[in-house]
């Protein structure tokens, strides 16, 4: 393997990497810290880093002001529902593209990706009208559908790249062993692709969780997820740093924790399956 790295070189690398890592992470850290300060300490000059009286008052203030649980639940349903629905539609499509490729497969894939490029704003009003007519404006089911369609190209693409790594011989073996198409996908392909599917689910869950165009424009009171919850702090409440921080922390904590626990799949998912 590689030659011995000098201790000094490794120390420099470590210091540099940690310095930059902490710098990048700092806004999040600062938000979390500020959420435990009083409003006065939050804007103190010079800023207080750790030596302050920790308080939970901001969290209770935020909870009083709005029904956090409801926003959270909406976020979970919308992100989870759209991701699962997307996977159900995408798995068969990705199977077709990966294992029965035709001359048009690449074109279809690129076309799907290109629908992602259609500016949402260009079709905002039509969708708005359709939603009113269907009576699903400001409903969770409406957002589940829209976000599923939004993320479908990415889900198909990611699954396609993961599936392509599975040797086609194994699927042929299943066919020779007497498996029907359904059994082949259910018993052989899906279990083998679990890591890839997990990465896809995680990444798309996060994308849907953080999606802030449709969720802001198609919801009001009933179906509003955390993106709307936090947008309501835009002003003038934004000037109350501690409460803003508490609300922010509450909005991002679920994803940060999820990310922490599923790091490996996430790292693979974050590359959209495109780079090995």
């Amino acid at each position, binding site marked *: 393997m590689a030659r011995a790295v000098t201790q000094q070189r490794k120390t420099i690398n470590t210091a540099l990497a940690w310095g930059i890592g902490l710098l990048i992470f700092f806004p999040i850290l600062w938000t979390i810290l500020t959420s435990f300060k009083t409003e006065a300490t939050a804007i103190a000059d010079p800023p207080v880093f750790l030596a302050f009286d920790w308080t939970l008052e901001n969290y209770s203030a935020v909870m009083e002001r709005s029904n956090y649980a409801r926003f959270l639940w909406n976020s979970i349903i919308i992100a989870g529902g759209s991701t699962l629905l997307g996977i159900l539609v995408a798995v068969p499509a990705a199977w077709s593209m990966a294992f029965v490729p035709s001359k048009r497969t690449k074109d279809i894939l690129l076309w799907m990706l290109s629908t992602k490029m259609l500016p949402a704003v260009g079709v905002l009003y039509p969708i708005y009208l359709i939603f009113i007519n269907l009576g699903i404006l400001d409903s969770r089911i409406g957002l589940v559908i829209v976000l599923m369609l939004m993320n479908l190209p990415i889900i198909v693409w990611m699954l396609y790249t993961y599936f392509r790594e599975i*040797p086609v*011989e*194994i699927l*042929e*073996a*299943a*066919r*020779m*062993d*007497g*498996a*029907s198409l359904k*059994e082949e996908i259910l*018993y*052989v392909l899906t*279990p*083998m692709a*679990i890591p890839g599917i997990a990465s896809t689910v995680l990444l798309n869950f996060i994308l849907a969780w953080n999606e802030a165009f449709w969720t802001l424009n198609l919801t009001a009171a009933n179906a509003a997820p955390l993106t709307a919850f936090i947008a309501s702090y835009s002003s003038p409440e934004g000037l109350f740093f501690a409460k803003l921080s508490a609300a922010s922390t509450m909005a991002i904590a679920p994803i940060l924790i999820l990310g922490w626990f599923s790091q490996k799949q996430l790292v693979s998912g974050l590359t959209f399956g495109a780079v090995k």
Partner: protein
Amino acid sequence: MGQIKLNQVTKSFGEVQVIPPLDLTIEDGEFTVFVGPSGCGKSTLLRLIAGLEDITSGHIEIDGADATNVPPAKRGLAMVFQSYALYPHMSVRKNIAFPMKMAAVPEDEQNRRIEAAAKALNLTDYLDRKPGQLSGGQRQRVAIGRSIVREPSAFLFDEPLSNLDAALRVGMRLEISELHERLKTTMIYVTHDQVEAMTMADKIVVLRAGFIEQVGSPLELYHSPRNEFVAGFIGSPKMNLIKGPEAEKHGASTIGIRPEHTDVSMSEGMWEGRVGVAEHLGSDTFIHVHDTGLGDMITVRITGDIQVKHGDAIYLTPQLDKLHKFDAQGLRME
């Protein structure tokens, strides 16, 4: 039962015809080897029989019934793949059980067959391991076990030994041959290695560019190759093929002589040449002889050891009764 009949079968990928119209009958219980250089269509032919590819025209019959449009799962054939194609997420036991699970074989019957297969293939201690924890040879045996338990009417092997190292390859060759002796089931075996073909087959089908060059038993192919291609392909080291005046002396366009059918002397003989490289294997010595005036280098094989140096003069005499003659079309002349 396991008779397989191909009737005017062709296969094209787009414009390219990889299998021209082809007829072939594989008898029940026969060990048939498809052999040929890479790209000759032997794997494609096997996949056509398996049903993993559609045939472009013609018919395939299995045991007298038309199987042309029957999906692979319903043909009752088992296949062992080059990469073994084990299911990595299943234990060895589950891998072997999979075809029976698909066929809804009762649980206790499944277990009985798994135990029997594991015993026959020396896998009993590994039944609960995952394929990733096995060596190449063990994986190969699991793949064979998986194909045995469903009691197919024929086994298809697609270059099953090419991923194993040389020593294992010889061992597995024997195991597969023994398996055939025991089961007496039809086996079709694809390989590019003529040694495997010679040692295992009842019947060899030599393919080139989708055409069947010759069908016959190993010794038929060795003793009377139908054309220059088969002559050059079967046998190791390769037959020496000589064109030009020397061939015309025998009334042929090309003559062929196997390295083991040439007598060698240091003092006199029909052809004179110089020693190039001598390969000493202990039991045999292969000598590559240059400057014979016959065109290409001539290879000869001598039993035992012989002391020659690079550049030594050497005399070769072919055994005339073992000489193969081919006409201008490359076909065998009797």
